């Protein structure tokens, strides 16, 4: 018996030894014309069927059994022609795969390739609850004012909501707008929108890759409860100088890119700016002589993206990138004795080093600076009043990508972030120094995380993604730690059908304090401390992915349940500014959400698009009054403003030929919740006069506005002038001019100032009627 066992063991060892006769094929997958790394490209060996995807930096490694015969290596990527090459594998190989955009076979083939890629991942990978956007979708889907916006395209995906009309806010699976980790080239973006939140800060001309995780968060991400939006900027054309740009109704933009040292290094610089202020300045100038004329405030926003990279060798590459954007609002009175300047925006900088230790071990090390701040500067007569808040991060992270074997692919790393908070800094001064006041707090804290993730191919049928993140937060001696398991499993029912399930936990150690119903630039980021505990979310999800009609269509269904602990809000009547003890102004609570997301997508042929439906519930409850503050909403649970029961999005794109593209989308959903006054009372005060109106608001979000629906349409006509390419995009927002309620308010029936004795009627306010827009885009 023992001899038999030893024999079998030795036989196994010999087999193992034979199995170890493997070689690696590694390298980068790049765009042949620009040298851009391609993220998520598929590459596989056709005989052994062993394949993988390029990582977030375009790198891949395959481990393939040695063979005396030639092998056929294949690669495919969205919008590119298939690539293949015969190789002899008698040693480890390094290959850079250069893929070309397929121009000869026009766009139809291009779209077919996209379908092959995306749908394969949906069936093969355990990863669920993720949305990936393609450049073509961002550019084609019609949006308001013709301003292409990746966030507004994401809002058309199941489980993602906008919050309000035309908003670039993100509300993911019942989470709040502050619970999204928004990364631009790995740097945290703390406020991702311009102008009331109507436009996101992301200039689509400078964007290469967009991924939104709604759940099943990969272990390398941490710090937010509800979603991760990971955006990668383009690197710049390594082979030739080129440019893209556009002239629109709201803004114009220009992107220039080119080689610094051909084939080895490149740069990209991209800018965008609005025009409002140029118009208002002229109006003010024309009316400057009028005595009673009140100047119109100036407003504009701009973005600037920069990136450069250098390839030292096949093993070492360095990237430097940055973003700077501001919204600027200025007002100056006619006499010059009252000035109001208000600006806000983000700054990020990323320095990234990629190193290949061995074909199987890839390193990405990143140093990141991230900053968000707002400043208000007022001057009145001889007084100056300034107010501002800021958050500033210095972040260092290291990520390893290690292919242990065909069955185990490890990703592990560590991250350290030093946060600096400036909370409601106020200064008030007068020329005579009789007023000299400063308030506000500065805080410093450290956030860290380590993670390990193993993508385990258990068998052909079963695949497990097992991850664990350990995180910590240290603030003035108070240390919080947490374990965040991230696990997903896939069972492949057939080549066309997979069933998936996931479990994930996320801690959030920094919090956005808002005393308004919307996200405003003046909201304050605040650290966890003795009083404010880290938020924690737990999400379980299950789903099915299924290909049908010959693989042309993908159907997916996901259901989820999410809980959120240690939610915080301001108490009623909280004093936020000139208050050095904000901890006393909070009320703590919890939240939960659950829902079902159905999705059908077609990506091949002339007609493409998707249909998504979400059925969901989300609630908040702030009943904890242990700190002496009264509970919110009398301690009862309530629907947050952005809760929507039903949400439908239909997107159709039609490419009859390379010159023309037509796009249509239609959205339908229950509208937002609103808090309306239920009662009124007379307020006399000590000043007397007529009774003024007292507003008795009832329960929070006591009224749901009428259902929202809207259709948009766009036509893109492409041209090929001698100097490059161009297109004219005609888009129509709100095609049938539906008056969707943005808010509801009461108004006196006689249009006089409101008093208690006035008679009132309810009125609904819509924001945008039908809006046609013409945009000109060019590329050279």
């Amino acid at each position: 018996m023992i001899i038999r066992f030893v024999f079998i063991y030795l036989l196994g060892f010999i087999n193992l030894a034979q199995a170890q006769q493997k070689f690696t094929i590694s390298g980068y997958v790049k765009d042949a014309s620009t040298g851009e790394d391609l993220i998520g490209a598929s590459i596989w060996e056709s005989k052994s069927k062993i394949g993988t995807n390029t990582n977030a930096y375009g790198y891949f490694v395959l481990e393939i059994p040695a063979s005396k015969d030639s092998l056929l290596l294949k690669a495919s990527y969205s919008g590119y022609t298939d690539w293949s090459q015969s190789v002899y594998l008698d040693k480890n190989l390094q290959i850079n795969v250069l893929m070309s955009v397929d121009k000869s076979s026009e766009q139809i083939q291009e779209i077919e390739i996209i379908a092959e890629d995306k749908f394969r991942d949906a069936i093969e990978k355990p990863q669920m609850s993720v949305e990936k956007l393609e450049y073509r979708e961002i550019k084609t889907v019609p949006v308001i004012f013709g301003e292409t916006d990746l966030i507004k395209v994401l809002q058309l995906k199941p489980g993602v909501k906008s919050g309000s009309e035309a908003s670039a806010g993100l509300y993911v699976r019942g989470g709040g707008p502050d619970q999204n980790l928004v990364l631009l080239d790995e740097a945290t973006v703390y406020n991702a929108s311009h102008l009331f939140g109507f436009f996101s800060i992301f200039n689509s001309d400078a964007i290469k890759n967009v991924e939104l995780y709604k759940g099943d968060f990969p272990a390398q991400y941490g710090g937010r409860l509800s979603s991760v939006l990971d955006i990668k900027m383009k690197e710049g054309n390594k082979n030739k100088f080129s440019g893209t740009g556009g002239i629109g109704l709201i803004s114009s933009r220009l992107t220039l890119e080119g080689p610094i040292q051909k084939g080895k290094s490149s740069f990209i610089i991209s800018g965008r700016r609005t025009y409002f202020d140029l118009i208002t300045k002229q109006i003010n100038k024309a009316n400057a002589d009028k005595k009673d004329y009140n100047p119109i405030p100036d407003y504009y926003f701009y973005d600037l993206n920069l990136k450069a990279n250098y390839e030292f060798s096949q093993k070492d590459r360095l990237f430097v990138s940055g973003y700077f954007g501001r919204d600027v609002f200025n007002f100056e009175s006619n006499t010059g004795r009252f000035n109001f300047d208000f600006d806000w925006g983000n700054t990020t900088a990323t320095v990234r080093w990629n190193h290949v230790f061995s074909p199987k071990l890839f390193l990405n090390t990143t140093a990141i600076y991230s900053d968000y701040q707002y400043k208000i500067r007022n001057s009145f007569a001889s007084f100056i009043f300034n107010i501002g808040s800021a958050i500033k991060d210095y972040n260092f992270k290291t990520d390893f990508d290690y292919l242990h074997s065909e069955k185990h692919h490890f990703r592990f790393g560590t991250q350290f972030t030093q946060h600096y908070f400036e909370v409601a800094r106020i200064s008030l001064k007068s020329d005579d120094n009789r007023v000299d006041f400063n308030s506000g707090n500065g805080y410093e804290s450290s956030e860290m995380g380590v993670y390990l993730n193993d993508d385990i191919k258990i068998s052909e049928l079963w695949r497990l993604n097992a991850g664990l993140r350990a995180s910590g937060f240290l603030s003035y001696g108070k240390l919080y730690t947490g374990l965040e398991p991230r696990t997903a499993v896939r069972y492949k029912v057939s080549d066309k059908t997979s069933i998936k399930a996931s479990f994930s936990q996320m801690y959030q150690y920094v919090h956005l304090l808002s005393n308004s119903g919307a996200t405003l630039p003046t909201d304050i980021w605040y650290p966890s401390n003795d009083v404010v505990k880290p938020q924690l979310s737990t999400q379980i999800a299950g789903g099915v992915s299924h290909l049908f009609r010959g693989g042309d269509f993908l159907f997916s269904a996901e259901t989820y349940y999410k809980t959120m602990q240690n939610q915080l809000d301001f108490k009623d009547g909280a004093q936020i500014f000139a208050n050095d003890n904000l901890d006393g102004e909070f009320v703590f609570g919890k939240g939960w959400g659950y829902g079902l997301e159905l999705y059908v997508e077609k990506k091949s042929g002339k007609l493409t698009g998707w249909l998504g439906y979400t059925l969901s519930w989300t609630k908040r409850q702030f009943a904890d009054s242990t700190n002496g503050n009264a509970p919110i909403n009398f301690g009862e649970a309530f629907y947050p403003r952005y809760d929507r029961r039903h949400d439908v999005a239909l997107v159709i794109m039609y490419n009859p030929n390379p010159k023309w593209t037509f796009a249509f989308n239609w959205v339908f959903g229950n509208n937002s919740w609103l808090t309306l006054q239920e009662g009124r009372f007379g307020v006399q005060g000590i000043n007397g006069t007529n009774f003024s109106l007292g507003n008795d608001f009832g329960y929070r979000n006591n009224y749901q506005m009428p259902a929202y629906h809207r259709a948009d349409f766009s036509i893109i006509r492409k041209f090929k002038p001698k100097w490059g390419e161009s297109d004219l995009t005609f888009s129509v927002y709100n095609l049938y001019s539906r008056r969707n309620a943005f808010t509801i308010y009461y108004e006196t029936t006689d249009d006089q100032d409101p008093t208690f004795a006035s008679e009132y009627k309810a009125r609904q306010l819509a924001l945008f009627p039908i809006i046609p827009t013409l945009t000109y885009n060019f590329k050279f």
Partner: protein
Amino acid sequence: MKISNLFYILLLVLISSCGLEREIDLNLPEYEEKLVVECYLERGKPIQLLLTESQAFLAPADSVPFVMDAKVIIKNNGKEYPLLPSIKVDSIFGKVYNYVSFDSIPTNPSGVFELEITDTKNRKVTGQTKFLDFLPIKEYSWEFEDKDAEVKDDSAKAYVLLRHNISPSDDYYRFIINKKNGNTFANDLDFEYKGITATNGEITVGSPYNYKNKDTIQIQLHHIERQFLDYLRSVEAASDAAGNPFAQPSPIISSVKGGIGIFTTIQYDEAFTVITK
């Protein structure tokens, strides 16, 4: 100006030309009427109290519904001040009260004053207050907007500045300017604040450019309780939030329990002056 209000104003400017408003019917939950109290105790003066009732927002109303069938008592240091239903009108400031006492508050009151109201619908409202120190105006001044201009403008307006010292206790204040209009004074400015911006123990507050040459104004400096500040701010916040989609509406923070309203003391210094260039 609150930032949310600033965004709201910009938004209204943006959409004003679009004509995107229309009247709608609402289906709101049934509203339960609440007692509404306003009572401001003053040293040496009879007690006057206004007791009204709130109503559903869209219900028709010609006037404030007075509640005249309630039992109203104020107690202090073992003494009871019963308030009887009786309409009393202040014609100068246009104020009205519907419960008054025969007895006046002592000129040097002490201790806590307690309010108790019970009406025939069995609703009960209670509250407490106490008197604070009198706080004098230290100085006041004004300055016209064309002060530094080479060519003076007859229509230029002035702002008014008020200075006072902080109080060692109950560090909450209210600054009021009433402007004379014929034989009456109408309120022109009213805001409450905490004394956090003091420099060397002195607080400076001011008005916008609101006053023309030869305007007659009444300036008042009130020393108020925290509960009064909370009530005033919540009434203002509720008013600002009405119809403003960027604001987070909050309930009225009343100083009384069982209803809406304020039961507090007032103590103020005042000055009358004519704005001159």
